[in-house]
């Protein structure tokens, strides 16, 4: 239901949906019915009272719906016209289709039965929507990795992972004890104690290339060290969306020095390098001169080759 639908209309929708539900749940307790529709029992009684006055033209007892709810249990008779559930709206269909995509990504490959069911549901829902809309959610992590790590979080058991560190350009093997999973800026992260680093680390789930459960020492006694942030200053030479997004600069002024900070020197070096002519790193001086040297060496190779 769209959010801008008014309260009386929401109630109308609820009443229309109550009839088919009661048809398949005859004798349901009033309080359970209220809970299912997320309203108070008093509101539900009022809803049923209203419904009781409705029916086919003529509105004699023969045409009115026959509702019984005084006993605290609800039954309905004589409501064939509204007996079937209402069809889903376009937005409801979109919500289910996108959700199903994500469900499909989490189903282990050997559950062909489930994957077939998802596919069949997708086709039937798309038919109801009536337009060939394309909808897709690509899950960030593979189903197998996600399954293994989320099980390890629940069971408090260790993991052996391969992790792609983008800044170091390395795939490292680590043994970790997961702490929890969380979302940040649209990415999922696993917080874990890393025995390889002997400290707490955060791993982006989509960069965990494989995960297997493994025994790890029970001792997580290491003190978490707080690495020092590196402050750096850049000047942006021309307007670039890529640079704004890479350095998370919301308000970009040209030819003005901007101060930023990062935990990773490699990230600073690579980000400035990738920005090419667009960004000048002013400080720290040692990173600046290192960059100039590296760019010159690369250039020599292109000139000499």
């Amino acid at each position, binding site marked *: 239901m769209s959010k801008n639908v008014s309260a*009386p209309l929401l109630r109308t929708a609820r009443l229309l949906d109550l009839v088919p539900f009661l048809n398949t749940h005859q004798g349901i307790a009033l309080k359970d019915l209220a809970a299912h529709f997320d309203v108070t029992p008093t509101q539900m009684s009022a809803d049923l009272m209203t419904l009781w006055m409705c029916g086919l033209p003529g509105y004699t007892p023969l045409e009115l719906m026959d509702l019984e709810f005084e006993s605290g249990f609800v039954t309905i008779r004589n409501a064939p016209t509204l007996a079937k559930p209402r069809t889903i709206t376009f937005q409801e269909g979109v919500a289910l289709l996108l959700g199903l995509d994500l469900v499909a990504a989490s189903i282990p490959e050997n559950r062909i039965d489930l994957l077939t*069911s998802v596919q069949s549901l997708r086709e039937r829902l798309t038919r109801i929507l009536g*337009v060939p809309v394309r909808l897709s959610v690509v899950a960030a992590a593979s189903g197998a990795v996600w399954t293994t790590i989320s099980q390890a979080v629940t069971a408090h058991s260790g993991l052996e992972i391969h992790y792609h560190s983008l800044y170091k350009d390395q795939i490292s093997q680590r043994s970790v004890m997961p702490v929890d999973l969380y979302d940040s800026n649209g990415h999922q992260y696993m917080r874990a104690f890393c025995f390889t680093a002997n400290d707490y680390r955060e791993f982006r789930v989509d960069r965990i290339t494989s995960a297997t459960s493994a025994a790890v020492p029970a001792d997580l006694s290491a003190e978490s060290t707080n690495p020092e942030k590196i402050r750096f200053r850049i000047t942006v030479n021309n307007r670039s969306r890529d640079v*704004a997004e890479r350095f998370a600069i919301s308000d970009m002024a040209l030819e003005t020095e901007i101060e930023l900070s990062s935990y990773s020197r490699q990230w600073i070096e690579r980000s400035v390098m990738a920005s090419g002519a667009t960004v000048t790193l002013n400080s720290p001086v040692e990173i600046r001169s290192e960059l100039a040297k590296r760019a010159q060496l690369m250039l020599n190779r292109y000139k000499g080759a």
Partner: protein
Amino acid sequence: MPTVSRKIERLINLTIALLATKRYLTKSEIFRTVEGYEGSAETKERMFERDKEDLRSLGITIDVGSFDPLFNDEAGYRIRSESYQLDLGDITPTEMSLLSLAADAWQGAAFAEQAQSAILKLSSIGVPADPIDIPGFSPKLSNSSKDLETISGAIGGSDYLIFDYLSPSLLSERREVIPIALSNKSGFWYVSGVDKAVQEVRTFRLDRVQGAITVLKNKEDFEFPTDFELDQTDASSAIRFAIIDVRKGKGHAIRALATSVTDLGEWDQIKVPIYTIEYLTAQILWHGDDVFVHEPVDLRENVVQQLEALVVNHE
């Protein structure tokens, strides 16, 4: 409150009457037989117009047709049960459970309400969900934008979305697009649609939209492009390829783009599809001296130019 209840009663009675009829009902028949239409002719008329709008906003389609072409032209109304009723065929308990999981993925996110109202309707089918075992399953559609509702509404009606979009050179550009696809990849939402200015399908990242998206009703017929595929990172849609050397054990991010790999000993030679020269240049520079580009010439020249600027800027 009583008047509110009266209105709700009238809407339900109207729905029942229009659903039950086998032929179109004229307005005068409706006013005569459906309970709740009272007052002057003008009042009834106004009530009925509003009621029709209200039912439509609940997603109920009212057919308008001729009551009896032989005798008069008076318009008649009915609701077809095929369009009113949910037709998902037979639902199994497992399918019911999969649909519930799909709805749960929206918890706390943009379509949470829509997903739950869909599940409420589905629960009326009376098929209990059969709990299925997907180990550790807890998918979430996080980072969802409030624009998703607007966009999906426009997809349904083939209406225009009008918004300001941040160009690669950080200029805010007005776009008018009939959306045909909605997708989420690597934590970002994308909308694809036919861009009015170029009459071709373009894809936009939602976090690059500046300010609010407005919807403009499209009154013309719209044909959904049939040749559009969502996965445009599919290498088959790239026209050109680059030949790049990558040091063994390095360049993992650029290797992920490769369509083929040749072993050169200390280095590997990979073939990478080119979507834009700028994007690939940034990828190559990111990897420093672990990556060396051979061809095409324009890509190589662009890399060299950027390196020259880097040397000059940092001297």
